[in-house]
């Protein structure tokens, strides 16, 4: 643990500091958007968006190599793919009368498959594992700035749309009757979800990112009677998971993304167990 703090303060080693700053910043977006996603019960849609991101990363690597497009970083590819996936999935779920889940799983797997194919055809060694499960060694200064920009954008929109989003999540029909453009807010929520996912991909990866979406909000849900309380608590929890996860994984050289998610999972189980014990006790 002291190793962790020494490295954190060592001016010559930046990646751990970047990871911690990125994780703490992203936690705010995760707390806010994750709470919307959990109360609206669309975590599986968030999952599909996250997996489609691999397609964008693969495409970005492939095209930047083949056509020398240096602006097309994996991060840019991830943002574009996430937004595209959010809009496609959103429109499908608004307009598809039936079998919405089939369409969503089809997009889920095709996105991943496309990513793996692009990566295979990109010259040089690319480790898909680092995108799937995160790799804090890969966070660059530029990534950090992208995260700061996206994070402030998501947090601002998430807070400003609070009263409308709450109504759309709680009772969409009534919100529509009051003249709220519910489809717009639904698509906005999916786009904000998409951007939030991108924030954490470097740290926990595509596969594990959904855990940080749903677990802090699920734990917070047990302690909050207002949506904003749920957001505040899950932001703090998410910050706690990221910090302890990084600290615990650093010494024994464990994969940090997996450690963060494991701590989140354990705390969820503990809360559930404590709840059950208390109920039986009463």
């Amino acid at each position, binding site marked *: 643990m002291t190793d962790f703090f020494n490295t954190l303060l060592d001016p010559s080693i930046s990646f751990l500091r970047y990871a911690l700053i990125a994780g703490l910043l992203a936690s705010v977006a995760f707390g806010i958007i994750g709470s919307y996603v959990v109360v609206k019960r669309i975590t599986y849609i968030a999952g599909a968006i996250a997996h489609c991101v691999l397609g964008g990363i693969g495409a970005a690597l492939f095209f930047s190599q083949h056509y020398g497009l240096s602006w097309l970083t994996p991060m840019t590819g991830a943002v574009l793919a996430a937004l595209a996936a959010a809009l496609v999935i959103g429109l499908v779920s608004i307009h598809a009368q039936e079998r919405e889940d089939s369409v969503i799983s089809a997009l889920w797997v095709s996105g991943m498959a496309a990513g793996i194919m692009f990566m295979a055809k990109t010259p040089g060694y690319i480790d898909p594992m680092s995108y799937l499960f995160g790799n804090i060694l890969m966070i660059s200064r530029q990534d950090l700035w992208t995260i700061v920009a996206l994070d402030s954008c998501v947090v601002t929109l998430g807070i400003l749309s609070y009263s409308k989003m709450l109504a759309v999540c709680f009772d969409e029909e009534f919100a529509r*009757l009051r003249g709220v453009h519910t489809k717009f807010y639904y698509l906005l929520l999916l786009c904000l979800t998409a951007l939030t996912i991108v924030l954490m991909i470097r740290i926990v990866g595509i596969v594990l990112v959904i855990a940080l979406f749903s677990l802090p909000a699920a734990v917070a849900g047990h302690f909050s009677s207002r949506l904003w309380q749920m957001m505040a608590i899950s932001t703090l929890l998410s910050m706690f998971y990221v910090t302890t996860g990084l600290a615990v994984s650093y010494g024994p050289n464990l994969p940090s993304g997996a450690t963060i998610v494991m701590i989140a999972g354990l705390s969820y189980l503990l809360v559930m167990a404590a709840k059950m014990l208390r109920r039986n006790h009463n």
Partner: protein
Amino acid sequence: MTNPILNFDNVTFAIDGIEVLSDVSFSAQSHESICVVGPNGGGKSTLLKLALGLLEPSRGTITVLGTDPIKARRKVGYMPQYLQYDQRFPVSVLDVALMGRLSSHRFGFYSKQDKVITMQALDEMGVANLAKRHFGALSGGQRQRVLIARALACEPELLLLDEPTANVDPSVENQFVEILHQLAAKITVVTVTHDLGFVSQLVDRVICVNRFVKIHPTSEITGEIIQDIYGGDLKMVRHDHCCSEQGHAHDRLF
């Protein structure tokens, strides 16, 4: 005759070619209180959804407050029959009632005035003291009242209530009758119910819906009419009720 608040003109509504409502015509005048009764699946809720513009008629025209249902929405308060929501949804009573103050333009938070109007609506429904409570922790009757308060917070000229007495015990039901009575003095109220006893004490006119619509002044409702609507024998219980100013026929049976 002044312009009706709500007007159905030969409205037919069909789903997959099956007519749910056929050639429905009726109108509600300002400050009138109307009850819509009929068996399950008879088209009562469909009638309200048409008036709200949530459904489009296959034929015929509907005008609400002199315009089409979608444009009139801002001045219509609605309490749905079912609210599909998660019991654990983290939302307070005030949060729910404030949704009546939503508008399409503002991108931000509710104003102080929104809160004042909403608290008045909660107060009117006798649930202002519950404002800070978790919505999911309320009893069925309390929840219905909050939902009516939410509809009132819209400051409506027309109030549409879908089964306000569902899941409510009889003592609360009597309070509801009183509350709706007061509301009807101020605005036009259309109530959908399966509860015929509730009807007799409350309204000026009854609209009976079972695909076709028949309209009766309350005092005309007899056993035969009820049998006609519901199709079959019904056990009828005479309630004590208030007489209208014109008095009432003594063969009135519920």
